[in-house]
């Protein structure tokens, strides 16, 4: 019985969230893409990579990539540390 | 004209993969599900290749190759585990 109440509670919260997303989100927003347009037009010249995604990933936003590698490094270290035999 | 035909093929293939999905969900044994997974990998690779021809971007074909390789690896991993199950239980 308790479980049923809990399920209903969860469902109601999720449905409420769904309604909020449904009304809060506007799919037809006019988009302003000054930054991206610059990437598309100049990215090839400025970084030398034809693949613009690569040029953003490793050129313009390479610091993010550094952070991401650090995330991977610490994950690997912690998995090794956690599962190491004593 | 071509584009239409190619897209029709894509649509047919995706409807076909619906059947494989049914097997994945329904399949009484895990092996059945794996068969479904195998077939889905094949069909989706076909869809990707056709779509790449359709988009006129041959560069996209790398994705299909990666997809094929990794589908194979995942199937081998899962069936390896299925085999090892008797040792565990």
């Amino acid at each position, binding site marked *: 019985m308790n479980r049923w109440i809990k399920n209903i509670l969860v469902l109601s919260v999720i449905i409420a969230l769904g309604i909020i997303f449904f009304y809060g989100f506007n799919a037809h927003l006019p988009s302003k893409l000054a930054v991206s347009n610059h990437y598309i037009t100049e990215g090839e010249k400025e970084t*030398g*990579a034809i*693949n613009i995604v*690569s040029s953003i990933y*490793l050129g313009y936003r390479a610091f993010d990539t*550094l952070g991401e590698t650090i995330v991977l490094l610490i994950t690997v270290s912690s*998995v090794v540390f956690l599962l190491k035999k004593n | 004209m071509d584009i239409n035909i190619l897209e029709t093929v894509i649509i047919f293939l995706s409807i076909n993969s619906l059947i494989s999905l049914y097997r994945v969900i329904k399949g009484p044994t895990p092996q059945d599900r794996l068969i479904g997974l195998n077939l889905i990998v094949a069909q989706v690779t076909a869809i990707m290749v056709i779509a790449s021809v359709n988009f006129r971007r041959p560069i996209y074909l*790398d994705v299909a190759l990666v997809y094929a390789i990794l589908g194979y690896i995942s199937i081998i991993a899962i069936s390896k585990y299925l085999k090892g199950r008797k040792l565990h239980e």
Partner: protein
Amino acid sequence: MEKGERSEIVSIISRKLVPYILLFGLYLISYGHLSPGGGFQGGVVLGAGIILLCLSHGIFLTEKKFPLEKIAFLEAFMITIFILLGIVGLIIAKSFLGNIFPLKKIEEVPTAGFVFLLNLVIGLKVGAGIILIFYSLCERSEK
């Protein structure tokens, strides 16, 4: 995973396939700036190749070939190189992670020297990381 358990077909096919998968991973890494792919994706494919080797030849043999210690060292070394590259950029190009190579014309194929280098570093690092995660998750059942 004892020896009798292993399928000969899978083992032989994987034996012939793994070098090609690794090569494909390196292709993805080194052509990351020209076609889809890049450091991370290629690294994952490298890792998946080694995982396939583990699955088909057993983890002991693979670990003998690619020992855990060395791979861990490779990973730490690569991340250090990444940061060092950034610092070299700071000295040469006056900004952290700045481009330290001259940009050539785009017609020549592998132009983006810096992107290429970073892709290589990241790819090796990601591959090493994934193999390490797999090793350490597998480790306990062997005992």
